[in-house]
């Protein structure tokens, strides 16, 4: 891990993070079709992948120079790293999927934020799911302190819900889909509450040093979008194979995702909303103007 690899102006390899879950169709399609590999082959740049799922680890690896492009990183992770003075730049969007982030319970009677008071709610801290909970509670002027929020990963939260030690679980991706299939009670999803943005990010330094690569990257992403539009069924099948899920499940879940890469005003707003939430929750120590990220 040499932190200075990116300084040399001529790159001979480019490492992307490769994250497939919850349902990252572009990543799956890209790898399967070898789109990046083809795009950078002319320049003699080898494309490599790093499977780092944790957002914190992704930004660490970016800062350490082991990875050049975070291809699919949560907005919260980007904000956290920027707030801690790391060099990071959002290149474009990857997906938005507020509906994929849900809050489930066994108890059918929970239907409003007020019903959550004092309940044990499990989910990963500092993520879209955490923000979802805060935003939902905020609609009734409540805060996370009014409930018993416990920090744990998605699989653990689901196990807790099932075992009965947790009243409400914050779930996303396959776990959310399964829970729904099992007939659990959906309290709310992220629609209208959070933007649930996943983005593509690099460092500013890299952005400035390699404009030609950035350009190639953009066109390659356009190619991916094309493929997903024109070969929808094929893309679903790829994802089903990669994630070892049913094609039907993939199709069902894919409805919740918007994979357009363009940065819209609403996205910027969403970023700011997330940053503000994190500031208020004490997760970052200073206010962050998200415009510095773009």
């Amino acid at each position: 891990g040499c932190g200075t690899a990116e300084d040399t102006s001529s790159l001979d390899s480019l490492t992307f993070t490769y994250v497939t879950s919850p349902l990252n169709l572009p990543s799956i399609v890209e790898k399967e079709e070898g789109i990046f590999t083809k795009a950078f082959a002319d320049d003699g740049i080898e494309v490599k992948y790093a499977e780092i799922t944790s957002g914190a680890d992704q930004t660490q690896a970016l800062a350490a120079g082991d990875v050049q492009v975070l291809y699919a990183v949560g907005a919260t992770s980007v904000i956290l790293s920027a707030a801690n003075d790391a060099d990071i730049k959002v290149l474009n969007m990857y997906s938005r999927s507020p509906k994929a982030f849900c809050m489930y319970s066994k108890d059918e009677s929970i239907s409003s934020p007020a019903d959550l008071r004092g309940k044990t709610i499990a989910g990963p801290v500092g993520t879209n799911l955490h923000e979802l909970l805060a935003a939902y509670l905020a609609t009734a002027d409540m805060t996370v302190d009014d409930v018993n929020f416990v920090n744990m990963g998605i699989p653990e939260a689901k196990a807790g819900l099932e075992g009965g030690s947790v009243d409400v679980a914050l779930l996303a991706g396959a776990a959310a889909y399964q829970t729904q299939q099992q007939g659990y009670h959906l309290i709310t999803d992220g629609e209208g509450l959070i933007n649930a943005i996943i983005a593509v990010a690099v460092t500013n330094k890299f952005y400035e040093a390699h404009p030609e690569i950035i350009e190639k990257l953009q066109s390659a992403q356009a190619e991916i979008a094309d493929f997903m539009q024109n070969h929808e069924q094929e893309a679903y099948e790829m994802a089903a194979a990669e994630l070892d899920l049913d094609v039907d499940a993939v199709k069902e879940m894919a409805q919740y995702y918007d994979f357009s890469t363009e940065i819209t005003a609403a996205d910027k707003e969403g970023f700011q909303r997330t940053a503000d939430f994190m500031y208020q929750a004490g997760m970052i120590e200073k206010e962050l103007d998200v415009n510095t990220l773009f």
Partner: protein
Amino acid sequence: MKKIHSAFAPFLGILLLLAVWFLLCRAEIFSPYLLPTPQKVFDSFLRMLFSGELLRDVLISFIRILKGFCIAFLLAFLLGMFRTLLPAAEKYYDAIVQFFRNVPPLSLIPLLILWCGIGETTKTVIIVLASFFPMYLNIVKGFTGCDQRLLEVGDAFGYTKFEKFRYILLPYASADILVGMRIGMGYSWRAIIAAEMIAASSGIGHLILFAQQLSRTDKVIVGIFVVGLVGLATDKCFGFLLKKLFKGNGENGWN
């Protein structure tokens, strides 16, 4: 002169580490995001110390570890004893013990949550899983490695199985048991993150994990230092206590 030097030696390694860290930060090879300066870490440390959060977290974790460790030790000791007194019973449970010895506790967390909920039980079980095996193996080694000739003395004086265990095997194996306990204690501390991964809102493991999730490397480093030092201190106290307890053994040239 020599004595000062000798008292100083243990710190030399640590000082060197600090110096390298300081120089690295000075040279600005890494962004402070990845490797915060010693000053920043120290500041965070002071802040956390004075707010009381650090002490509370350490205490909570300490109690958890003690609980898990004691259970693990009792289990390991009883199983080891059982195996020694009743060698025939061993083969019934040995396969299971050996099986679980190799299973990563992290993979068991969802199953543990299912069985034991998200309360203290799961946390304790994870610590037990982490510290049980080195203790068990060392205890078994201590018992099975006992000098047969000394055991025969017990036979000759009409000792029962249990008496032989109590008066010959146990003192003989004490060195092995102590090493097992020290390793086990170390592993209890090492498991604190995995244990507090689940629904903890306090504890030093939770502190580190939370800081990690929030990309606060300075807090992570404070946490690492505190765990390392507290662990070191527990180990020393522990060694001291055991030396007192097993006084006869420690000072007769036998251990």
